[in-house]
């Protein structure tokens, strides 16, 4: 009997390890031999822990599982109280376009054989037949843009590094996924780590780099463990080292962050990787020319690198065929906060915010009306219902004074106090500022004080807050100070009542 149960952090946080132990115990008591595969999550977090049982009719899903639901897994499955039907036929799964996440939740994350059976290494084998310039051109042609949030064309970054002359170059994967509402990097690393490894090897071949680092935040213990195990397997099986016996070499290792949000900024990450304070560097020089240890370095997000194998497997034109405008390919939406159906949903760019929040997410978990959706993490704008017709794309959100960032969406119901959210944005920036530039270091502290003045009914502080936000936006060295004004100003602009009511109450 083959049973799948996720090792994914979200499943574990909802009791998957206890379910696993119960499955083993019941199987043992009944004398049934069970092969329990700890897979990644399918992304339907409201159904976790989600158990799948392999049958002649496909993989049948059961969830959300509790301990009392375990014994019935060994009886008539059709009568199981948590039976959901075949996993692949669930509406959430069927409507997606899973390119980057095609294997997540499907395979055993640490089985290289599973990975190969499901198309793994096909992209790398094709890349090995190409010249570096052609590989870079393939990525450029795919239209892939940095999935970490900045949206910079990945191919252009690779071209700069590829053409740079140096004795050593590096590929650095930014897995410091600190934005609230984002967990795509975590799910990918936990559910299909070989995809990231394959993407990094291709990046290394294209750019002439032989060493890579995955910088994973310390808050992701499961991802760290799975990535380290996968790297060891990839090395033992000849994917890393002498890459598939091609005579070209690439190796990589995991490095663990230490709780600093700002290290998700690429130059700060590089300093941290070098063993320094995670202080932001001024640009230029670009990391592509002077990055890790002063050498040309590609710094890409997990999802950018993990999208590379499918681009090489199926071709740039295939990938480019999805999306809208200048936002090509697919994007793993991460639907979070107060939602009925939360989780990861990979789809071509272009759905409207309303289709995502009201349709896919099914509204709030509390059943109350949606008041605001913060898109793009703590540095993203709060969108009111009036902007729900905004299509999900880089330029489309920028046009509404927002950003898609790493594609995380936090839904709030009508009990949210937007002044409190604005204050939190400033407080968070003050806690996490690296301290290098004044607008961020001091501006955030003044920002908290200014919001507090507004809360006490001082209307004169409102223009002051606006002015402060302009200074932070224009004068900060990186996105932490530069983008904190997005949540603050969007809260103020779209939810003026939350700032005015307090004034009247005074």
């Amino acid at each position, binding site marked *: 009997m083959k049973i799948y149960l996720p090792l994914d952090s979200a499943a574990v*946080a909802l009791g998957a390890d206890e379910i696993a132990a119960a499955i083993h115990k019941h199987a043992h008591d009944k004398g049934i031999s069970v092969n329990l595969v700890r897979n990644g999550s399918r992304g339907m977090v409201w159904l976790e822990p989600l158990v799948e049982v392999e049958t002649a009719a496909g993989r049948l899903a059961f969830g959300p599982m509790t301990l009392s639901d375990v014994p019935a897994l060994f009886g008539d499955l059709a009568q199981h109280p948590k039976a959901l039907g075949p996993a692949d036929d669930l509406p959430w799964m069927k409507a997606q376009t899973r390119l980057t996440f095609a294997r997540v939740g499907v395979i055993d994350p640490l089985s290289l054989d599973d990975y190969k059976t499901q198309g793994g290494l096909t992209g790398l084998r094709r890349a090995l037949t190409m010249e570096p310039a052609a590989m870079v051109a393939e990525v450029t042609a795919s239209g892939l843009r940095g999935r970490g949030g900045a949206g910079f064309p990945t191919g252009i970054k690779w071209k700069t590094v590829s053409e740079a002359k140096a004795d050593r170059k590096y590929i650095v994967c930014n897995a410091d996924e600190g934005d609230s509402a984002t967990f795509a990097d975590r799910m990918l690393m936990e559910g299909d780590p070989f995809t990231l490894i394959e993407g990094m090897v291709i990046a290394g071949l294209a750019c002439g780099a032989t060493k890579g680092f995955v910088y994973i935040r*310390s808050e992701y213990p499961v991802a760290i463990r799975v990535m380290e195990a996968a790297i060891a397997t990839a090395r033992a099986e000849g994917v890393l080292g002498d890459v598939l016996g091609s005579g070209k070499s690439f190796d990589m290792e995991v490095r663990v962050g*230490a709780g600093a949000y700002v290290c998700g900024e690429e130059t700060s990450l590089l300093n941290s990787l*070098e*063993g*320094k304070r995670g202080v932001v560097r001024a640009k230029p020089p670009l990391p592509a020319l002077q990055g890790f*240890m002063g050498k040309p370095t590609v710094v890409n997000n997990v999802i950018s690198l993990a999208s590379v194998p499918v681009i090489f497997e199926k071709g740039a034109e295939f990938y480019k065929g999805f999306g809208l405008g200048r936002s090509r390919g697919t994007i793993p939406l991460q639907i979070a906060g107060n939602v009925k159906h939360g989780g990861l949903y990979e789809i071509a760019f272009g759905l409207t915010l309303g289709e995502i929040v009201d349709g896919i997410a099914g509204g709030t978990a509390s059943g109350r009306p949606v008041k605001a959706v913060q898109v793009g993490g*703590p540095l993203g704008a709060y969108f009111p219902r009036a902007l729900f017709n905004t299509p999900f794309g880089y330029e489309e959100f920028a046009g509404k004074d927002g950003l898609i960032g790493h594609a995380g969406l*936090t839904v709030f119901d009508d009990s949210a106090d937007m002044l409190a959210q604005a204050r939190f944005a400033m407080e968070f920036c003050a806690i996490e500022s690296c301290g290098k530039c004044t607008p961020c270091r001091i501006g955030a502290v003044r920002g908290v004080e200014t919001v507090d003045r507004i809360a006490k009914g001082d209307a004169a502080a409102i223009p002051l807050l606006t002015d402060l936000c302009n200074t932070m936006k224009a004068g900060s060295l990186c996105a932490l100070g530069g983008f904190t004004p997005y949540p603050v100003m969007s809260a103020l602009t779209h939810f003026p009542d939350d700032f005015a009511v307090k004034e009247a109450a005074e």
Partner: protein
Amino acid sequence: MLDSDQTISRVEEILARHQGMEGALLPILHAIQAEFGHVPQDALPVVAKAMNISRAEAHGVMSFYHDFREAPVGRHVLKLCRAEACQAMGADRLADHAKTTLGLDWHETAKDGSVTLEPVFCLGLCACGPAALVDGKLVGRLDAKKLDALVEGMK
């Protein structure tokens, strides 16, 4: 309690394991904290010397990162997520409840050394908040009742 010589000899073992590693300081500090539960201040001059940096630089790096602690913490560490997705599910109220129940503010340790309360900004459990990390174990959909049970188990 270890005396200074014992601390230093164990730190030297850790340093030896990291020889030749590029940018080894963070991995070294993580290894020291894993060994001692915090980064003993006796260790810093030894680390600094091995890395060919000043003690001030070593301290500067250590103090920059939220993870590294100068002093021992409680026997249990309760980390509650304070980030937006968990806020949307009532994390602020839950944090207030925890603070009242434990009689602690953020970063404080109970007088009997049983528990330390710390904030964390995102565990990537944003679709099943409020989230917590209890002695390294992930917990989702935390509420006051579950929290009380966890706290009870820490006494």
